[in-house]
């Protein structure tokens, strides 16, 4: 255990936690926006898989990381259009539509990978970029301020999302259609348009999350996400629909995972206990919620399609 509390290991653990948290955070923030408008998207994982594949394929073909990020974003947007049409225009049940999107993304990304790539080939990974001055802070700088740009973006999006929701006119519309769409409608706020745009933003961020995942790894594999998108949805509940809470959840999840891996590497967790240790992130997430016992209520209109009468 003593080995763990050396600075270099702690710094590595923190860095690892932040890396792991990045895709969760991006996807969860997007899902937060969607859910605040009353739309549950269980298809995040599928969107992430598709955008991850296309990002990967872009780097493979062009070597251009930023183009790949853009492609991930655009794929997310495209999936957002699909999801918006299904759930907002056609008022289809959200839960099942999301699962349909998930299965579709899972299958299509796998298929495309097999057809267009086949054998996994490594590509460039997102380089770490030092934040001037801050990165020179001993240890802390190394852990927090020598990360990749998508990580910085993810964390900057926390206050940005909070601001969007609490201060902007659009955020006000989002919150109102998520709580009481009838009221919003009676004041001339278009429930349909507001939700559609919220879905687009949410999916675009899921697309970014997919890009972040694959570009941090530098390689793609079928089902790369391994259910990450579902955890991202769960973290929205954990964070009580607030960006900062969601960030807390993503960091907690990343930190527990990173710590478990460090402890395995150090032999603190014996090989025989490895599976039990793998339960830690999920168990701790549940325990945290029990202890915090926050009786927060979901947006009142979450999952409810809106019709005027």
């Amino acid at each position, binding site marked *: 255990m003593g080995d763990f509390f050396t600075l270099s290991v702690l710094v590595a653990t923190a860095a690892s936690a932040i890396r792991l948290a990045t895709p969760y955070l991006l996807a969860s923030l997007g899902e937060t926006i969607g859910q605040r408008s009353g739309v549950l998207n269980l298809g995040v994982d599928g969107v992430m898989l598709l955008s991850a594949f296309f990002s990967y394929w872009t780097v493979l073909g062009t070597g251009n990381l930023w183009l790949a990020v853009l492609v991930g974003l655009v794929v997310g947007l495209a999936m957002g259009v699909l999801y918006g049409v299904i759930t907002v225009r056609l008022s289809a049940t959200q839960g099942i539509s999301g699962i349909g999107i998930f299965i579709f993304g899972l299958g299509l990304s796998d298929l495309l990978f097999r057809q267009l790539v086949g054998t996994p080939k490594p590509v460039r990974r997102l380089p770490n970029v030092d934040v001037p001055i801050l990165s020179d802070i001993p240890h802390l700088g190394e852990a927090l301020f020598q990360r990749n740009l998508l990580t910085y973006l993810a964390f900057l999006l926390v206050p940005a999302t909070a601001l969007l929701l609490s201060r902007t006119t659009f955020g*006000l*519309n989002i*919150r*109102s259609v998520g709580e009481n769409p009838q009221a*919003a*409608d009676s*004041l001339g706020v278009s429930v349909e348009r507001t939700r559609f745009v919220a879905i687009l933003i949410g999916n675009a961020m899921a697309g970014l999350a997919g890009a972040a995942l694959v570009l941090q790894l530098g390689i793609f594999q079928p089902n790369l996400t391994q259910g990450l998108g579902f955890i991202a949805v769960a973290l929205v509940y954990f964070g009580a629909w607030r960006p900062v809470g969601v960030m807390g959840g993503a960091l907690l999840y990343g930190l527990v995972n990173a710590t478990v891996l460090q402890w395995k590497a150090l032999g603190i967790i014996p090989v025989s206990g490895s599976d039990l240790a793998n339960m830690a992130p999920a168990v701790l997430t549940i325990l945290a919620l029990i202890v915090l016992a926050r009786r927060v209520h979901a947006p009142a209109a979450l999952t409810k399609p809106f019709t005027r*009468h």
Partner: protein
Amino acid sequence: MGPETNILEMRGITKAFPGVIANEGIDLDVRYGEVHTLLGENGAGKSTLVKILFGLYQADEGSILLRGEPIAVGSPSEAIASKIGMIHQHFMLVPTLTVAENVALGTASTRRPFTDLDVVSRRVSEISEEHGLAVDPSVEVRRLAVGERQRVEIIKALYRDAELLVLDEPTAVLTPGEVDDLFVILRRMADAGRGLIFISHKLREVMSLSDRITILRNGKVVGTTTPDETSREELAQMMVGRAVRLTPEKPDMDVGPARLEVESLTIHGDRETVAVNDISFEVRSGEILGIAGVSGNGQRELAEAIAGLRVGEPGGSIRLDGVEVTDKDTRSRRDRGLGFIPEERMRDGAIAEFTVSENMVLVDHASRQFTSRGMLAFDAIRRHSRKLVDDFAVKTPGIETPTSSLSGGNIQKVILARELSASPTVLLACQPTRGVDIGAAEYIHTRLIEQRNLGTATILISEDLDEVMGLADRIAVMYEGEIVAVLPAEGATREGIGLLMAGVVEPTAQTVG
């Protein structure tokens, strides 16, 4: 009457829903500066008419002239743009947003993409001051009392410069004091030249506020009159289509033993205040104890405690028929003979998606009468429901109709039928006729008295003073969580009780334990 005097003219409005014609060739004029009341039973078509005006529904036939110009209102935003404001029967507020945010919703902001809430707040304060609508713009709406929410709705309309204001049953949820305040505001708005459409079932209010009254029955206009030309009795007759007894007939009864005993009951409220403070009383077989009071003085908490919805919280003791039930849940209290008519009928009283028949057995579904060999006995349930629908004159297409498609008064009758058919020894009736039309209210009152005559100990919690005074044998007045007085109904005056409710008069008369 030329266009210059009428702000609104609705001509030949017809609107049909599947199976019902809600409006049939309705004409309605509203003048500048007048309060024009729409009166009618539940389901007469009042809300439908004003929803058409506000663009929520489209009329099948007919035309609308606003300020003399024909207009087509396709959506609420078009109505708002035409300076029509509407206060809906069910508030259109987002509870998690602040007052200012609710007001700002849907309006253009000067600081796009951000919403300039400071500007909104300032304007809200101005409106508050101008019209006497005290409310704090920075508070979340869910923290507001019902009356305050109403004020927010009015502010919303005024913020949008509404010149024609529609209020659909604004007083249904208000206390008498709040109603008086509201009427002052409405009158002032009318005097400033606005046109107001006011909808209510309460004849006393209608007589005091209206300039003109239009009565609807079964989707048609029965007539238009003024308070000077008519009386409450005549209005009731026009609405219902037959003579109506406004004050129930109540024979004298000998009271029996105490059925419900409440002793030193203390409840902490939701906001860390003491909601009910050391209350003691008893209700005897064959009597109705009316509890009067302005809402928010602990009646709701008291009712919940008696019903068993706050097990574990209250200090003190509650006994049903002599048996201690303080720690027992709702079900065991009901098993001991408690009947409960909750205040919020659509939320707590009935399940909207369930059929009438399912709601009829919501409490008793598992009794031997309605089950056989572990399964629900549908034949028995149907027979029972049909009988109750007949006995209680519930207006419904059938017992398998979803309850949500019944009118408020009829839903209340379903609940009443369910609770009374179990022959309760103690009946807790909360706001039993709120939002219910005169015909239904008359019926409900009759049934409550019948039950009393059968020996049920009834506790009636109501903010409708007429109702309490008409039904109760004894009246307890609640003020700030305490019972400040218990008076015999005979000889009690509106004014006297009103003062007690306002906490003005020191408790004088008998304070019974």
